[in-house]
């Protein structure tokens, strides 16, 4: 490791006669601190190997990749897979599903924790407040398999509680999991159920950080609760709200594979199939490696544009950014 860094450092070195001394100094620095460098080395190797090196594999999106010829010898086809992608009607539908679900997730999963945090913040009784919090954080610790299992169980047409309630009103049982018109609502509802409580934590922390003197002087000035909310609380929360919004927009293309795949079944593909599940089914299970890599690349690029774009926009308008 030390040698490798040394070589790279030498390459960018200043004029010839100064070089031996500079080299000597650098070598001395590395020899003296080799232990520290050896501590970051495994981490750097991890990031390079698992997060950067596979980028080379993206080249198969432009090939007709097969296992026998490998990345180096598989035939090159240029943008053929991308062309196929945009001409394939199925793809348009899956892309639309992805965008609709992610848009709904943004609308429902982003503001609900803010509202809940504002309400929790009004609870004066500290034991009650802690009890509310403990119960609301709980679903965050359950796996998507369990959350999906609970969802399926509650919605079951024969034994589920929801259909039991419908029965009280004389309604016929509905097979929620098999009807595509319900799929998106089920995804959004179960997602909010799992994460809304957990999402309040950052906002509660921000609320706790507001200087109480501001409220006191506002009261002296005769400002009511509503006025205090608009003029003190919300402006103080704005940086936190912006950062959370940015992170949400940045991960818009990731709807949560584990969440959707758990509840997906062939009967609801027309509203529920999204890019990630399609890539898994067609690519890994169906063996269409190059085509699904093209889809994956398309998705990664949109994701990248969303993060960078949202970050720039926020930097300009509010001065907040995530990197």
């Amino acid at each position, binding site marked *: 490791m030390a040698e490798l860094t040394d070589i790279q450092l030498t390459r960018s070195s200043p004029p010839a006669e100064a070089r031996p001394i500079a080299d000597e100094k650098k070598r001395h620095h590395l020899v003296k601190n080799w*232990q*520290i460098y050896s*501590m*970051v080395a*495994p*981490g750097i190797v*991890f990031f*390079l*190997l*698992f997060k950067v*090196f*596979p*980028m080379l*594999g*993206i080249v198969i999106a432009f090939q007709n990749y097969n296992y026998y010829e490998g990345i180096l010898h598989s035939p090159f086809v240029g943008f053929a897979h991308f062309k196929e992608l945009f001409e394939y009607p199925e793809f348009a539908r899956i892309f639309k599903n992805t965008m609709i679900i992610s848009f709904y997730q943004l609308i429902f999963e982003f503001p609900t924790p803010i509202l809940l945090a504002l*309400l*929790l913040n*009004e609870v004066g009784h500290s034991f009650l407040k802690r*009890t*509310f919090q*403990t119960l*609301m*954080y709980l*679903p965050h*610790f359950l*796996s*998507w*398999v*369990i959350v*999906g*299992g*609970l969802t*399926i*169980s*509650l919605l*079951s047409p*024969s034994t589920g*509680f929801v259909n039991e309630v419908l029965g009280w009103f004389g309604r016929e049982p509905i097979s929620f999991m098999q009807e595509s018109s319900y799929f998106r609502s089920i995804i959004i509802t179960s997602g909010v159920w799992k994460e809304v*409580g957990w999402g309040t*934590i*950052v906002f509660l*922390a921000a609320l706790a950080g507001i200087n109480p003197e501001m409220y006191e002087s506002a*009261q002296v000035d005769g400002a009511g*609760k509503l006025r205090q909310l608009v003029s003190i609380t919300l402006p103080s929360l704005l940086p936190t709200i912006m950062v959370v919004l940015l992170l949400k927009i940045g991960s818009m*293309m990731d709807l949560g594979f*584990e969440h959707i*795949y758990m509840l997906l*079944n062939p009967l609801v593909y027309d509203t529920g199939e999204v890019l990630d599940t399609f*890539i*898994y089914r067609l690519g*890994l299970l169906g063996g269409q*490696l190059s085509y699904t*890599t093209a*889809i*994956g*690349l398309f*998705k990664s690029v949109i*994701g*990248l544009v969303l993060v960078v774009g949202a970050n720039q926009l926020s930097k300009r308008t509010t001065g907040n950014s995530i*990197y």
Partner: protein
Amino acid sequence: MIRASAPRKWFIGFNYAFLTLVSLTMLFPFLNVLAGSFSSGTALLRGEVDLLPVGFNLDNYRAVMTDPAIWRSFGVTVYVTSIGTALSLIFTSLMAYALTREELRGKRWIMMLIVFTMIFQIPLIPNFLLIKGLGLLNTLWSIILPTLISSYNLIIMIAFFRNLEEGVIEAAKIDGSSEYGIWWRIVLPVSIPSLSTIGLFYAVSLWNGYYNAIMFIQDSKLYPLQVKVRQLLTGSDADELMRTAGTALQSMEGIRMATIIFTTLPILLIYPLIQKHFVKGSMLGAVKG
């Protein structure tokens, strides 16, 4: 205390009622499934079970707990979670510690590398080809290694270590301690609260996750608990269990409910212990973003 006005009183009343309702919503699906898991199949099918078991029996649990495949998956998950958490903690803390040391050059480049990996996602198939190329397919390493260091946890840990007393480290250096000695004997012991927080982040995501497992593992003997349970809950596995261990009191739904409770119990048992750590860690993450 300032006297509350009438609308304010209304608001407070509404607020308590609403928050109580939300809290109960978090609990209800559980209680419903818990009651169902102890109920007879006929009561379940008649829709009689709400919050209390009807026709109490343990047959559903007997069917789940006598299935050797579930126990094997349970063992796989315990193995992956313990080994994975230990390795993740070692390598994350080593890297975070070195990144807080002044002697390390090129920190800016390393941080840029980490942030870059957070915003650009490698598509599935190239990842799959990497795991295949490394010979990790159908091994438990394919679950542990791809998530060995989480950028998010690394950044939180760097923030923790930055708050450490610089003087202690300097004193240890003067005493001739090696860097590894300082890391192991000084930095780690004083960071136990933060290490346990990050450790729990890693442990819960290893215990709960199934993404890596369904991507990289085809051998059903190596299925972790979540993959096995997923099959039971969505597929025909519950049918099979019923046919082999079934009695008249059971139904597929009942067996599924018992499976859910069985899988969730370990998390529920440690939840009170871990909750505090989690909240602390996630707040720090929020501040440092």
